[in-house]
């Protein structure tokens, strides 16, 4: 809704998401606020804008770490929900904003907001993470975020002809690396012991991480759980 002289009402946020009840928005805000890290990340805000001047996302998106710190400090439930639904995935997580003279950590606040958005399976967050599932699959199963076989021309056309050249030579180039743990490995970043991966799978189940995946992407959860449970059973 555009701001006009009629609806301009400083101090009171416009309800941009009337489909969500105030009670639900408040529940989500309180979930963020109850995180033990919350008090370490927010001390108030001078509105000096140092965080904004350092923020890469503020240069390219309609995004402001200052607004996030402000809305959370004011406990503006409506505005915080807008931020969860519209803003949090713009943050580059570089933490340039921790220049804050009050000691705020707006990037840290974003991680808390993101965790709550993921845990509650919010539709906007499901949409944003849809194209990212294969990365989650890789990191949870292989213990590595990226691997050589992810460098495919279809996924990285903007990286130029180098990607096609690499892709055609991947197997031989990987053998031509002197580091023992890397040589010849294409489906992970390095050779990892099976025992190490079983320990990692145990961590995902024991910490509730698998429940988080189930909430955000049930299909991905089924794929991961099937492989991990089978591996853990075999021991």
């Amino acid at each position: 809704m555009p701001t006009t002289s009629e609806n301009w009402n400083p101090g009171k946020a416009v309800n941009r998401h009337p489909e969500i009840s105030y009670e639900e928005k408040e529940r989500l805000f309180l979930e963020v606020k109850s995180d033990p890290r919350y008090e370490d990340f927010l001390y108030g805000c001078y509105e000096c804008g140092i965080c904004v001047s350092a923020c890469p996302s503020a240069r390219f998106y309609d995004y402001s770490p200052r607004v996030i710190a402000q809305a959370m400090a004011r406990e503006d439930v409506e505005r915080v929900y807008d931020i969860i639904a519209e803003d949090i995935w713009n943050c580059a997580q570089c933490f340039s904003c921790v220049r804050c003279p009050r000691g705020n950590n707006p990037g840290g606040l974003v991680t808390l907001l993101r965790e709550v958005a993921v845990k509650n399976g919010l539709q906007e967050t499901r949409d944003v993470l849809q194209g990212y599932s294969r990365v989650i699959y890789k990191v949870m199963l292989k213990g590595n975020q990226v691997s050589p076989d992810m460098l495919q021309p279809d996924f990285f056309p903007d990286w130029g002809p180098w990607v096609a050249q690499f892709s055609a030579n991947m197997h031989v180039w990987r053998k031509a690396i002197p580091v023992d743990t890397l040589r010849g490995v294409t489906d992970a970043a390095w050779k990892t012991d099976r025992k190490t991966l079983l320990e990692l799978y145990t961590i995902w189940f024991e910490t509730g991480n698998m429940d988080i995946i189930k909430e955000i992407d049930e299909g991905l959860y089924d794929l991961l759980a099937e492989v991990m449970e089978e591996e853990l059973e075999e021991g």
Partner: protein
Amino acid sequence: MLITVEEILERKSHPVIRDPEQAPTHDIHETLHELEAKGEIILLRVPEPYVEVTTKFGRTKKIPIEHTWHHKSCGQCGHIPGYTASIFWLHRQFDLDYVDPTDQTSCTGWNYYASATSNAAAQAAVMCRNFAAAYETGYYPLIHCGTSYGHYKEVREQLIHHKELRDQVRRILGKLGKPLVIPEEIVHYSEWVHVMRHRFAENQRVDMSALTATVHPACHYYKIVVEDAIYDPDIYGGQRTATVTALLEALGIKVADYSTWFDCCGFGFRHVLVQRDFTRSFAVLRKIETMKNEVNPDLTVTHDTGCVTTLDKSQFAAKAHERKVGVPVLSDAQVAALAMGAHPFRVVQLHWHSTDWRPLMNKLGIDWELYWDEFEEDLEQIRAGKKAGITWEDAERPVINV
């Protein structure tokens, strides 16, 4: 109290020397020792020999020289293997004792900063599992990735301040048969490079004095848990981190300043994988093009995984749009290895970099075509099944001498 202009100018006229007694943050080491005394954690101590350096608020940090357990980086090993190979090659040149483990996972921090599909307990358990694996070998963790380094420091703070988290992680590690281990220092490989820089310079075989370089300090190295990064009054007057810049100066390279040094590279974690319009724009408009316009460097040097990838790979599309690009991107470890004569392809693996590095090699007087022919021969032998792969036996010896 009113501060006069003269007082401000006087303060700015000499390097900043910080007094640890005036540090605005609590010294985490005190709490770590208390937790160790209570039997809550095993505190992994930095092995000798180590070098003491000064961090942002004037405190001292110990950097181990050897007996290190290399916590590799998934982005480096997966997409820039010459970065990892150079770190190990440098160790091998000085016969330093190290372990390259297979009992290691990535920190999973990249995924956390990209998708938040994790939680505090999972992040802490992954970190402590890796540290316990290092402890079992008797070696000390050296962290290759800037994000792992920053993330682990953040997680260490959370573990120290929240007993419930410690208890939860200890219970999970117990199921794995591992104790709760925290190192007394979390050390980034670029800090090791920093303290080794004069030894690299003593063994330099390639004159680099004709080069002008820019430095991109990695955000997760010095912006997360800020007090732990190395600062030196002799580098930028102690106002910026000294890592990378001090190495380049020791190797005789001219370091040129540029106005957007504080900006991130545009990596964005999620963005570089699935929303690269942001990454490309930021990397080119705020970093590469600014460097090019202001100082026209021969190369830019950084010390983290994502920064090398982002700054290097983003230049292709920008070139198509006739932007001012064409700055080769290397890590500090690769520059040090080249300076000491490492093979440009068997070790430094320049063929994994997409921005044209040939003008840089030519300026250094390195006959890269000669080394590429050698490497092509290696590849042919591997393709023909005559050779299983390149080993340290093939790559260990310094070859460049100009």
